[in-house]
């Protein structure tokens, strides 16, 4: 399902460094001509830039010799890809069945409330992005919240604040 993302005017490439573009070129080079490599190229691109702005999609399209429409189609099809910039940390609240029946919805509501953003949004300071994830396969620990690569088990609205605080810039380097 297309995610209905409103095309955001991509900022000038000043947002990115020449090194990043060089890395992308190298990735495209290594994937070119290999069958079925579009998704992998886009994954790599997202890893480099943090998200897939139009500019980057267009480089991938040209590089792999695939129409831009197909690149856009793939980028919007998979929830893994993001067309808008992500925060420094990604907070994903699991909304899988087990998490849902154990209060995952209330946890998500509280996250929205605490961060002041909706699912798919990023805080103004670009610290946090909020995502909904369908299942991280840790159902026995439901409800779970994932922040970057750390999974937090048996969450409740009450437990969120101190955990998020650990990730905010002011807490780092302590």
């Amino acid at each position, binding site marked *: 399902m*297309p995610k209905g993302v409103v095309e955001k005017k991509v900022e000038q490439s000043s947002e990115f460094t020449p090194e990043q573009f060089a890395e992308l070129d190298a990735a495209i080079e290594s994937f070119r001509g290999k069958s079925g490599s579009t998704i992998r190229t886009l994954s790599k691109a997202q890893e480099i830039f943090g998200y897939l702005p139009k500019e980057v999609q267009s480089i991938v399209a040209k590089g792999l010799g695939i129409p831009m429409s197909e690149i856009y189609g793939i980028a919007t099809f998979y929830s*893994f890809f993001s067309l808008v910039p992500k925060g420094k940390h990604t907070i994903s609240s699991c909304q899988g069945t087990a998490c849902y029946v154990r209060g995952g919805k209330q946890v998500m509501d509280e996250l929205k409330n605490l961060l002041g953003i909706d699912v798919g949004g990023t805080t103004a300071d670009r610290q946090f992005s909020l995502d909904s994830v369908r299942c991280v396969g840790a*159902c026995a620990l439901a409800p779970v919240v994932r922040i970057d690569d750390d999974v937090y088990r048996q969450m409740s609205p009450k437990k969120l604040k101190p955990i998020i605080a650990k990730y905010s810039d002011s807490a780092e380097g302590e």
Partner: protein
Amino acid sequence: MKRYRSTALVCGGTGCVAAGSLNIYEQIFRELRKYRLEEEVNLVLTGCNGICDQGPVLVIYPEGTFYNRVDPASISRIVEEHLLKGRIVKELSYDRSKGEGQPPVFGEIDFFRMQHKVTRANCGVIDPRSIDEYITMDGYSALAKALNEMTPDEVIAEVKKSGIRGRGGAGFPTALKWQFCRQAAGDQKYIMCNADEGDPGAFMDRSQLEGDPHSVLEGMAIGAYAIGSNMGYVYCRAEYPLAIEMLGTAIDQAREYGLLGKDILGKGFDFDIEIMMGAGAFVCGEETALMRSVEGKRGEPRPRPPFPAIAGLWEKPTVLNNVETLGTIPVILRKGGDWYASMGTEKSKGTKIFSLTGAVNNNGLVEVDMGTSMGTIIYDIGGGIPKGKKFKAVQCGGPSGGCIPAQHLNVPIDYDAIAELGAIMGSGGLVVMDEDTCMVDTARYFLDFVQDESCGKCPPCRIGTKRMLEILDRICEGKGENGDIEELERLGELIKQTALCGLGQTAPNPVLSTIRHFREEYESHIVEKRCKAAVCGSLFRAPCEHTCPVGLDVSGYITLISEGKLDDAYELIMERNPLPGVCGRVCTHPCESKCRRGQLDESIDIRTLKRFIADNAIKSDSAAKIERTALTGEPVAVIGSGPSGLTAAYFLARMGHPVTIFEKLDVAGGMLAVGIPKYRLPEDILKYEIDTIKSFGVEIKNGVDVGRDVTVDELYDKGFKAVYISVGTQGSYQVKTPGMDLSGVYPGLDFLRDFRVGKKVKVGKKVAVIGGGNTAIDAARTALRLGAEEVNLIYRRTREEMPAADEEIEEAMREGVRPYFLTDPIKVEGAKGKVAKLVCTRMTLGDFDKSGRRRPVPVAGTEFEIEVDMVIPAIGQQTELDGLVGDKIRVDGGYIMVDKYTMATDREGVFSGGDVIGQEATVVWAMRNGQRAAAEIDRHLGGSGRLPEAVRAKFNIGAIPRQGEEEIVEEPRVKQNCLPVGDRKGSFVETELGFDAAMAAKEASRCLRCDYGKEDLPFQKQELEIAKGK
């Protein structure tokens, strides 16, 4: 830290303490000192191990020996023999052959004992990063066997023999899939592993890949050999980084050992594997979509045929198997297809892994033989439902599956048996749901999921599920309409038949199956605007109020307690409940089970707070301050003065109708007066509340037996315009056990009633009470108070299944009632015509019955005798309707049949409620029936049918915010004081002592005020709209 040679665990749970475990503990302690063993043996008092009828229980480690029913004599021997000399005392230890249930062994719990690990044998045992450990466990020997000794056709034949069906969901025979692919034309073929595991709630594939990745690689290599492929792909979701890492390590190791690559094991077979990462799309679990995704395109499905076995990945013949299937292939080849097929049912062979989650004590992965019952998985392995909640249903097969309700817990794990119930085996996700789950909301959740994941290619799925979701959204918001359920069914069937792929075709399943098994819950949302589980937040102010059968504004009166306005609180309660002192003592408080505070620490003690207000009202006669309505309406007759009749009469009077209650006995109050003992409900409390009801314009005529002294027709002749029948269930259910005619047998209800009305009641020295309900507990505790030396409580199931209130059971045991759980009487034996002993048999729990409880079955050869001189059977009650109803009113099974929303019987103007309609037999439900009936009778008599509702607004409760700190800290509920156990014998003084003002204020301050800011949802009003619409 001290080092001990042995550890002795003595159970300190309530049951064992009642059976004398504290004395045992002290005795062991003394004996240990005697032998100077106290430095060597660590003596520990543990929590309840849940098999109280085996108590006192002693377990000794490191041997893990379980001694049950120990006494002082056996303790001396155990300490001397076992702890001193190190010899297990066999004859005192638990003997499984006695059929007394399973002994607990600490640290090796039932969760594992009842499983059969075949596919998961290595998980959690070997180090997944070590290929050598895998090889040590016979790893890759199946591949070696296949390459060395078998032709590809022989491999397929062996797999065919095993009968294994695809574990990913649809259950297609694996061997057949392989055979099609092998026979397909083409030089390039592929084998793929589906590790997309998109079904939320399933994680066995993740665990397999993380814990035993080589099993999957070996299975793929064998499959590749069988179909003639040299390239394989694992499609794994990006959400599983550890699985991808383990898989990557395993592939590298296998390549290094030459178990992947060219000329594997020197047998001329080439095969390699690559990992493809999924990018987050549920539909990619569908095989054709998955292949598109591996090709680097949008993962949209395409119509089949051609099937992938003919034209799959890059249009080449391809086999796609699930992780679990592939992980099982090596063991099938090693041990043989026949061995595998020896497990399971006729059409579903082998074992299956389930991920068990949700409202169940043990969450995790479970591997059992096919054919195991669903109930075994949930109760024996899963350990049942936490917090004593009721099991409601289990969602099987994720968003494509369906729910299986309590009455089908015996269903065996079998592809076809599960499909018959409208669910699917799927990948094996089992999400257990308890009474706090709303089935409509659950269906909406799944539909929302599928809607979101629909790829959009075909309209039935894209648009059809959207329409269904809109309807469900409306229902959950309280805007459901007649015909919605039928429309959902119609759309569901349409989508099932016309959607392009498996995702779409199965998308309506959760909705259709919840409608099939829980239609009532949908109706309740649509008609009554009521969500039984208190989940659909748009329907109510606070869950307590919504759950309270009489709709009490709980947060309202708790707020008023905080404000110190006790008269106001009383007035607010009286607007919905004329018996607050009664309910404050004996209500089963369904409200507390839904209290949101309970999710944090403990629910508010709503019942005792209500009692606090009621007791204060008696002191300051708050009732006198409430305004009375002028009695300008039509006269109404109420038959029976129990809680239902009193409530109906009260509300009718408040709506202006003069009411006469006809009561057979000389006392008013029904079961409240003669069924509930005084130590639970003192007479003066009941009297004050009945007097208050009378003061609103209700007359009670005692000693009138309607049906005998006067008929219903004659009541109409006397000018009554409507009749409410609430006569309850006055007969004791007859026990069929032989010997029940002996002198000394006294039915529980008669026993309680005779004692309360002042008849001479003689109590034996050794009493046996049979039953597990409130009447049984009341009878047992009354017998103790009347001087019985020994009261035995005989119940055929376990304590968990006892219908009596938990706190009552607890108190009974503290007072010295001796429970015999899992015990059933066979006969009463007499001497000289009098009761002498009760012969019993031990029971064990067997299959599940319709209510989802295990059916007790006798264990042969376990008969034993209890010496008694009095037997009180209390296993249930029945109605006595002789001459009362006539032929115009429909009666079924002894119960009066009524419309469940209006309480109307088949006879115009006659309504009925309470225990006599045979539904919920509790005080508060009887009162709800009375309240509903009063509203409907008022409407029948030309009134608005509207109960008064002004007090909350009058005191402007909605504007009072929650007191206390913003940050809520964990704090258990305030415990009310109780009469010391020693003071209870021979006394009928009330046992529970309630709250004082400080305690009440503290407890009230724990309320989270769920009602705050939700003023526009008067649920009573909504309920009325409905009744009108009917």
